[in-house]
């Protein structure tokens, strides 16, 4: 599956099936600090992602 990351913006390939919690953890991210979006909808942490999914991991922490 294609995973879009921010700061810096880049795409990485991951192999499914993969649970959202595992994806977030494998990238060294805190689940409190991101949203996971498949296509254009949010997914919960227990969801399983597959090879043909397009996923965005969007940071939600603002510094202002």
């Amino acid at each position, binding site marked *: 599956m294609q995973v879009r990351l*921010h*700061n810096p913006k880049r795409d990485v390939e991951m192999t499914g099936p993969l649970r959202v919690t595992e994806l977030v953890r494998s990238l060294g991210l*805190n*689940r*409190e*600090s*991101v*949203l996971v*979006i498949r296509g254009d*909808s*949010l*997914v*919960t*942490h*227990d969801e399983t992602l597959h090879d043909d999914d397009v996923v965005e991991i*969007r*940071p*939600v*922490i*603002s*510094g*202002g």
Partner: protein
Amino acid sequence: MKCKPCGQPAVIDIPRHRAAFCAGCFTTHCQEQVRRAISSHRMMGHSERVLVAISGGKDSLALWHILVALGYKADGVYLGLGIGDYSDLSRDYAERFASSHDLTLHVVDIPTDHGFAIPEAARATKRVPCSACGLSKRHLLNRAALDGGYDVLATGHNLDDEAAVLFGNVLQWQVGYLARQRPVLAAAPGFARRVKPLIRMGERETAAYCVVNRIDYLVDECPMAAGNKHLRYKETLNAMEERSPGVKATFYLKFLDEMLPVLDDVAAEERALVGVCSRCGSPSSAQVCAFCTLVERVATSSAR
């Protein structure tokens, strides 16, 4: 996971509420959190005119959307900071939201109106950009609310912002700052009432609210924020939150209930010290207010 209120498939889980929600129930939940914050802190009434500080980011656009949904008469004000592409882009997001929702957005541009940009002001004062930026925002947003005849100025500070500020204030025992860290600051001569209706929503929730309601916001952060203290405090708090869901909310919301009443006297003492700025007439505890001092420093440093 299933939506707690209705049993449909959920799109977001909120560990601290031990609940997951579908899109519709999540929207209702967020609006209810804001309604509760407004009523329990008596922030404002439906007949009042509200000015919302809009940055083009998730918090301010979610706030504007929710206030309108709750039936408030809310206009927006966008403050141009002169931070390169970030400012141009964020203004586009703010204007697009206003026009697509048929709302009024005022624009105040610091470079146009005051002749400097935030990065320049930071260099001139040899302080971090966020400090020049923060004091400019406080001054100019207050002025925009007063000049526009609004009853109240609403800002998009969320639970994570307030918990991080509280953490910083406690680490250094800034008692004066603690006494003033309130969800409502009452109007006073020269000050519009200021309210923070998002104090019961975490920033993951404000971002999710935007995604679920198709609110297009600027995801990229202000380039000046990188590595600032506020972000480090949020990281620390989130590391704790991941292990003990709810610690952030308890830390901040209990501060409001248990600690602020104890600090009432300190807040009153602080208020008694406030006079007026000899340049612009704004309330200030110094002879010349922080904003006028900043404007002056930028002018002398660019004259050199």
